[in-house]
């Protein structure tokens, strides 16, 4: 597991998220600027855990109304009917539509909750100073980063259902209040992923492995 190479931070170097250049902050400063692309530089994303946690809590709070409130209301001559996301999944379930029903179930219900749980676990393990399963944890982070965007799918489903079914007075579909909360969950979890710094996963192990070195001028 351990490699001979040190980390950039151990060498007092900062890598740029904008352009990848490694540079050395001028003495006595923690935050600098990239000489190549002018991006602000820090050793780690500032207040990464706190910000990720804040976004996560906000997402978890929105997750409840997102699933309980209706996302679509269908108005027909016979009255109106409101559907939540889960009801939408059930409605889609048919001999031909079940694969899409599963996709929506996966994208709208499982991905957001898995994302919240995974990030909560990452924050918790970093806070505890865990040195185990670093590779698995960083893979988990990348996975969350890649699949997270797919939970937007339900927002688009509702958008196009609403915009196409406008056959007043026969039938029309309106967006429901749950849609806003659901969109908020997607955006907040994406922001949470962006603010988490995966390098924190390795820091505890690095601090234990590496002996303090004598700094040469």
């Amino acid at each position: 597991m351990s490699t001979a190479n040190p980390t950039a931070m151990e060498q007092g170097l900062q890598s740029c998220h904008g352009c990848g250049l490694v540079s050395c902050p001028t003495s006595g400063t923690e935050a600098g600027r990239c000489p190549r692309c002018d991006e602000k530089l820090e050793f780690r994303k500032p207040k990464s855990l706190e910000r990720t946690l804040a976004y996560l809590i906000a997402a978890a709070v929105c997750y409840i109304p997102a699933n309980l409130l209706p996302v679509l209301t269908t108005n027909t001559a016979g009255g109106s009917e409101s559907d939540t996301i889960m009801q939408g999944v059930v409605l889609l379930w048919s001999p031909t539509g079940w694969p899409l029903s599963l996709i929506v179930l996966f994208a709208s219900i499982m991905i957001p909750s898995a994302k919240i749980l995974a990030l909560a676990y990452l924050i918790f393990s970093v806070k505890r100073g865990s040195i185990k399963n670093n590779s698995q944890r960083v893979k988990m982070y990348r996975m969350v980063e890649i699949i997270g965007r797919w939970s937007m799918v339900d927002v688009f489903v509702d958008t196009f259902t609403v915009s196409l079914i406008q056959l007043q007075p026969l039938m029309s579909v309106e967006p429901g209040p749950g849609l806003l909360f659901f969109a908020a969950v997607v955006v907040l979890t994406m922001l949470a992923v962006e603010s988490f710094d995966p390098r924190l996963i390795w820091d505890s192990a690095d601090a234990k492995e590496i002996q303090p070195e004598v700094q040469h001028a």
Partner: protein
Amino acid sequence: MQTQKNHSDCNRPLADAKLVGCLDCDLLQRIPEVPAGASVRCLRCDKELWRHKPDSHNRTFALTVAALVLYIVANTVPMLGLHAAGRSAFTTVVGGAHQLWLDGQQIVSVLVLFAAVISPALQIGFLFLILIGGQRERPPFWVGMLLRHVHFTRTWSMIEVMLLGVLVALTKIADYATVIPGIALFALFALVVLLAAMQSCFDPREVWERVEWADEEIRHLVDSKQITEVKV
């Protein structure tokens, strides 16, 4: 030309430009020369640090121009049509967002517009300008300014997700009405493929190595090997 930059908060670069810190685990390592098509992965966490993409500029440019054309088609002609009870309705991506706005969901409407229309436009437009500016031997600084925001445009550009959403919506609606796929729908399918190909052909590192720096004086020092080596 006088640079107005304040040097005091600018970091000092290393003499060795091949040295990188993995952004997923912070391990310092040198990027070795690899054959075309091969990738360099982090020794510790296996993140792809760099992929040697041959002929990056020309290939990406061709794909970007094609994407630009398809993008314009996809957003101007109808995407979906619906035929029911003797009536027809057509919509585009912008039309979908507009209907949400009319129905009181302004915030979601803006989000849909941002993810499905604005971000893809920025994604294609930024890359187009970067490649135009990147044709010069020493691309100007604004190329770098656009390049460092490419990641953002990619994160929020969600055409592939939108298409899946359209597919699901079509299946739902097919129970009530006849759905007519428009030309824009096919353009969007092709656009998804082009955007993926465009990103996989593009090598930002190649542009970064040539671009004008925020602090040009420091770049001159690096180029003339006047920067003291940091021991690693």
